[in-house]
């Protein structure tokens, strides 16, 4: 997919400094994004302004990622933003452009508001809030918003599809993609990946493949070739060696003809230092894409 997408020019990327002695292949770096969630422990928040461990302002995030890693795509949670007023987003956009970067995707996690709500009023509120964030994505030149689909339980699946269609119609008019990723947690009520694929197809939205979000090797290997063909040009990459091989996941994507972005999602399980955790996944990507 190409809507609102752009490739950051090599010249501008080279202008930023990097910790590496030898700059990696810029064409590969241009296919990599980094999620703000990787830096959760050190991101400043309004609720803990005096925390000495929190040293990174979200406004500076794109600059930091460009300078340190030579990566010019950054991905945010909607909860990262301290305001949704036009003036704030104008300044945010200015800072993104200053770093020669792009917001790759905004991930929406609205607490109890999601497409699987049984209550039609809640689904309508989910639609309205998603529309607001589609507008905010446009304000930030961001081509994608990703939703949390909730349970997609059989009894709400049809209304969830109807809700997604309404959101998608709005997004299309604004030139923004709506994506969803497969989710799996041992302690949650999970929907099988093939049902997830059916919902995406039925609603006309796009997949955000995530190498880490499967219960086992079999489902991962069956699902990823399909999901990489249903993207809006972006995916998530985790590294959990005891569960799966990240390199194998990238190999599957290449075999499926995927030419989009790999966005790094590092968590606490990757180590206490977020910079190191991101670097580890970045090195795997550079060696394999």
């Amino acid at each position, binding site marked *: 997919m190409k809507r609102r997408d752009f490739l950051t020019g090599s010249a501008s990327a080279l202008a930023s400094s990097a910790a590496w002695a030898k700059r990696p292949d810029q064409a590969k770096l241009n296919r990599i994004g980094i999620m703000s969630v990787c830096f959760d422990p050190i991101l400043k928040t309004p609720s803990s302004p005096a925390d000495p461990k929190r040293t990174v302002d979200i406004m500076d995030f794109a600059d930091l990622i460009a300078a340190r890693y030579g990566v010019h795509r950054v991905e945010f949670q909607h909860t990262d933003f301290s305001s949704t*007023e036009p003036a704030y987003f104008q300044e945010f956009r200015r800072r993104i452009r200053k770093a020669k970067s792009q917001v790759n995707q905004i991930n929406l996690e*609205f607490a109890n*508001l999601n497409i699987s709500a049984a209550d039609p009023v809640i689904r309508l509120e989910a639609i309205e809030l998603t529309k607001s964030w589609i507008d905010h994505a446009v304000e930030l030149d961001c081509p994608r918003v990703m939703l949390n689909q909730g349970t997609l339980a059989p009894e709400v699946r049809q209304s969830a599809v109807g809700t997604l269609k309404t959101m998608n119609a709005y997004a299309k008019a604004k030139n923004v993609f709506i994506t969803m990723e497969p989710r799996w947690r041992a302690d949650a009520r999970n929907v099988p990946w093939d049902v997830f694929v059916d919902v995406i197809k039925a609603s006309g939205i796009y997949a955000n493949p995530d190498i880490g979000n499967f219960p086992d090797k079999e489902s991962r290997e069956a699902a990823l070739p399909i999901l990489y063909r249903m993207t809006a040009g972006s995916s998530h990459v985790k590294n959990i060696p005891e569960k799966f091989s990240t390199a194998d996941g990238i190999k599957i994507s290449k075999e499926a003809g995927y030419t989009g972005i790999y966005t790094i999602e590092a968590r606490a399980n990757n180590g206490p230092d977020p910079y190191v955790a991101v670097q580890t996944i970045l090195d795997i990507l550079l060696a394999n894409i």
Partner: protein
Amino acid sequence: MMKRREFLMSSAAVAASGSAWAQRPDQAKLDRIAVMSLCFAPLLKGTARPGNPKATLDLMDLAGMVAERYGIHRVEFQHADFPSAEPTYLQEFRSRLRQANSQVNQINLDFANLNISAPDRVIRLETIDLTKRWIDYAAALDCPRVMVTHGGLAPEVRQSAVETLKTMNAYGKAKNVFVTMDPGNAPWEMVVEVIKAAGIWANPDCGNFPDKESPAAALRVLYRMSAGSSRVQHVPNKFDTADAIKIAKEVGYKGVFSIETSSRNSPDPHASVRAILDILLANI
């Protein structure tokens, strides 16, 4: 009294609608009265009541029914009444309102788990964004007011609640829509302070006080802070509705009285609305 987006229905248009009454009440009085959709909740069709044989009234027909039956051309809705907020639905809704020569008096926003008193900044931002969307829909429906719920306004969140209201109000002003709030179950003096600090407007409600003493003091203040609309309930064992209307008149209130009934008034929503309407017509 505020005039933004307000209009008085022309007598000619109003006279064109039929009424169940043998003798038409004073139209000038009827023009100052609204009826809330909430009064007819048991009769309203909706996805929440599929298959309920008593639910015979489509939301699209509410304004027409209220105009026809009561000669009232102001209707007030909950945001949750609307089965869709898509442009085509709202366009049709507006067309049906105009057909009834009616106006939406106010839309009351009661978002699940989202309000200005949320300690979590993210929840407050979501409340702002949803409120903005409903301000847009109010403007699209020629509705002059949206009412927000205050969520408690506990001391530790009060300042952030005021800031949240200010952001909403700035947007409301730009769209020519008033943001209002009623005291609910909170101490009315504190709510008055919050309303003043935020620059928004009061929606006086004679039924929303914990005791018999508060309404007399509070209503005198609140009617002067309105955006041209107020709420009228009828709970005889708690307060005298006629006394509340008298206070409104004493402080020079010239705005709308919006009828709010519930099942405690009568099992028949029409009888409940009629009872309050008769009190209003006798006292305003």
